[in-house]
């Protein structure tokens, strides 16, 4: 038997639950991810509403029909009105394409260097900084291309190390960081002068003949602290660099082949893809402990981007051969994969559009 008071309480509780669900639903956001599939020359656009992820659109990029051109890097402009995609292989130089968000209309292009890869736009200068990865064999110093994304013209090139990758800016956009994978270096560029201001050898075993053993592949600045994190792909480590002192302050032992990194907007968590371990590592930056290692749906775990609210990590998995790649969406509250979508061959670059 249910007493009247209990029934009222139950009704109230039920109503409260309903309100909470409605509020949760109202608060639920739709995230849109752009995923570059490097071996099928496609970009997938995937929507995730907090429960389900769906491919909204797929389209081909590039201009050389029978060649694998390799879309690699992606970013969305600060105003959210354009997105940008770097094409690795041209004749021979790669290209930066500019598309309108929504219609995906191609509105501009700009020739860059060899194998342009990851990129970001600085809110301070309004310019786009993209590394010319130059994965073409000869380990020579390469460059960072600096592009005016409004007119799509390259305005400068700054020489850095061999195979620069992981092009990331500070939140303010005043400093640009990248890692030179094969010369083992970390580079800092002043976003306004385009000059290299500092660099650091990250490989304690000094690289021989431009063949770093550490192979730093990525760098992510901390959003609020003067620190950056670099993935040492060849040594299963992530290093923390104090940018005030320009010193390595911590080393994290990771899974095999840490590749891409991102830090949650509150600076509490660092997420790292483990290319050789088919997993995503979630690190608590306060403790320096790996909080969780989450298996991904396919091997060759590549890119990662954390949503602006810090709730999810979008993770691309390349896989191999004809096995298509995937996009895994990891809930950073539960440390579980919330959704997975199959995309094209060799899914790598990722960028988020949040509305």
């Amino acid at each position: 038997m249910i007493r009247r008071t209990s029934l009222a309480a139950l009704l109230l509780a039920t109503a409260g639950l309903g309100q909470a669900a409605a509020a949760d639903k109202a608060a639920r956001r739709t995230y849109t991810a752009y995923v570059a599939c490097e071996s099928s020359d496609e970009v997938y656009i995937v929507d995730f509403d907090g429960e389900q992820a769906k491919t909204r659109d797929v389209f081909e990029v590039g201009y050389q029909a029978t060649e694998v051109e390799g879309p690699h890097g992606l970013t969305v402009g600060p105003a959210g009105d354009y997105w940008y995609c770097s094409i690795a292989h041209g004749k021979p130089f790669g290209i930066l394409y500019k598309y309108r968000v929504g219609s995906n209309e191609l509105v501009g292009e700009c020739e860059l260097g060899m194998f342009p890869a990851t990129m970001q736009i600085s809110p301070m200068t309004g310019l786009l900084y993209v590394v010319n990865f130059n994965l073409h064999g000869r380990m020579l110093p390469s460059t960072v291309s600096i592009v005016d994304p409004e007119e799509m013209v390259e305005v400068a090139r700054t020489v850095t190390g061999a195979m620069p990758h992981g092009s990331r800016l500070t939140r303010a956009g005043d400093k640009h960081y990248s890692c030179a994978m094969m010369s083992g270096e970390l580079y800092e560029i002043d976003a306004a002068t385009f000059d290299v201001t500092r660099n650091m050898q990250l490989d304690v075993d000094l690289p021989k003949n431009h063949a770093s053993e550490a192979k730093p592949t990525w760098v992510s600045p901390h959003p609020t602290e003067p620190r950056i994190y670099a993935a040492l792909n060849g040594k299963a480590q992530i290093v923390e660099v104090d940018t005030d002192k320009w010193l390595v302050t911590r080393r994290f032992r990771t899974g095999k082949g840490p590749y891409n990194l991102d830090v949650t907007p509150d600076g509490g968590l660092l997420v790292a893809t483990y290319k050789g371990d088919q997993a995503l590592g979630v690190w608590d930056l306060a403790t320096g402990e790996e909080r969780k290692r989450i298996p991904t749906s396919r091997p060759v775990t590549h890119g990662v981007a954390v949503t602006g609210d810090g709730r999810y990590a979008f993770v691309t998995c390349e896989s191999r051969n004809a096995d298509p790649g995937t996009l895994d969406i990891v809930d950073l509250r539960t440390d579980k994969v919330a959704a997975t979508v199959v995309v094209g061959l060799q899914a790598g670059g990722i960028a988020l559009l949040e509305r």
Partner: protein
Amino acid sequence: MVERSRSFLALALALAAATAPAQNQKPAAGGSVRVTPPALTLPVGQKAKLEAEVLDPGGRPAEGRVLFFSRARRALRVSRDGELTAVSPGTHEVVVRAMFGRERGPEATVVVTVPHPEPAGIEVEGAPAVLYTGTNVRVTAAVVDKDGVERDDLEVTMRTSDKAVLEVDAFGFLHAKKAGEASLLASGGGLDHVRVFKIEANPVEKLQLSSSHERARTGDVVTFTAALSDAGGAAVAGVPVEYTFRAMPDDTLGNAATGQITSDGRFVAEQPGLYTITASCGAARDQMTLRCDERFAQKKKLVKVGHGPVLDVHTSDLWVWEGVDGRDYCVTGTWGANGDAIFWDVTDPSRIERIATVTVDARTVNDVKVSEDGRLCIISREGASDRKNGIVAFDVTDPRKPERITEFNDELTGGVHNLFIDKNYAYALSAGRRYDVLDIKNPRAPTRVGSYQIFEPGASIHDVWIEDGIAYSSNWRYGLHLVDVGNGIKGGSPSNPVKIGNYAYPSGWNHAAFPWRSKDTNKFYVLAGDEAFPYGLSTKDNPTYARGWIHFVDFTDLDDPQEVARYEVPEAGTHNLWVEGNTLYVAYYNGGLRVVDISGDLMGDLYRQGREIAWFLPTHPKGVVPNAPMVWGPQPYKGKIFFSDWNSGLWCVELVEDRGRRR
């Protein structure tokens, strides 16, 4: 003689007046940027300094950094502190952007005009020293600057001093009317150029025409020769002769132009019919009529012998060879798929048997080649999961059990699109930038011994083919490159490739190269194949409509290559090609496999001349794109023709008499 008639530009514009209104202020709530000067004109090679001041919304000076960048940095350089250097003419923009702390601020755009260097002269070309009455010659004229660079923004007009003696038309044709002296006046860019011509009485009284053929077929190059003599019967040389023709094609039902004649009297017919060739020189003229028959009285056709279907993935290149056991084999690659190469027993081409598949870490195995001894197969890799790509070698002594013996990716990580094996060397492309030469005497341990790269801005390579110690590479807009890699003509070797010559054409579509010496004419050609997809490439569901043709480049004089002929199938596009004897085999993508007669001398469009022997459209209802021919590469072999089709796999066809289509 050059006469300066008026000043072109007052180049004392180095720094324009501060009143120029071209400074474009972007509206910004946070203030503005004032740049001095707000616009300027700067001659090539000159420098100027921009001064920028950040202002608050009230127009008062404010704290803020300024960023300068040029939107045409190769034409107009700007330093970090605003110093400009003009490099090349045009109207360029420099952006001066303010930054308030770490926030983007307002900006100004400064328009910088870099004028062309002043015209320095007019160059007239094509004019002989002496003209003869009743003859025509063509001249061209252009304005050049002090460095000799043509000012293509300036037009040149021409007129003569005495039209009764010498006339010039709008296209630069000079018509010598009567003996005497007359001037040609070329004007442009404020300059005049005067050239005085002497016109002599034409000594030619008689012109007698002869031809290399009494009767010809379409596509045959017939040489007409005009013998000139004066009133006394003595031979005359050096007076220009004009050749024209009138066509009377057999097909009179609205037929189009049907032949071509060159200024030196070589003629080729495209359609069967009668052709009357007229040669004239002043008042002297002669004409001959030539009968041109259809090229092939008996038609041939290609018939299917066998098909090795590959219907789940796209097929790329092929190589057919005789195995060490005396049987015949073929290997085909795959495109945008699982990294497979497929081996076939084609001993009985009517029963093509798939005998083995190897899989490497790749998405595309674009090229496959087998060594001359039939023991070593090398395949290319693109889309490797570790992005190291390179090549993979297999021992194919027993093609039913290919044994993977090594891979090589050092400096080939960006992807190998094409490769070639010649004797003990493999030539592998590195990411469209160059080809590396690998010593494969020990195929289990290849070593790099040489490399060839075109060091020009934006140079890119697509394929390489080796024959008689010469590497023939196809390089998109840089065209064909011939390189001595052991021939000796330039002292080259695999470890020391030395360029012999090159030839490029405007489209930039150069995708393939194949050398061929004509035994009929002893002319040496390099056939350049295009690849173009102006309407895109459809990987599934729909057919593709490619474009492009085969360019016949006469390299007989290695220092002066001439493009003399083409083979262009309308509405289709070329891919790979092969020449055996006097027969050209072309993989013509959506146009199928084409077989072409290239015997004799070559001139003009071989397709329109009816030189095509036969064609074959491979289709399969369950192809990757159903019923859509997309022929990738041909290889004639032991009297048959093997080819790979992108949508349907490996095919073998045979050329036979078409007894059902006698005309």
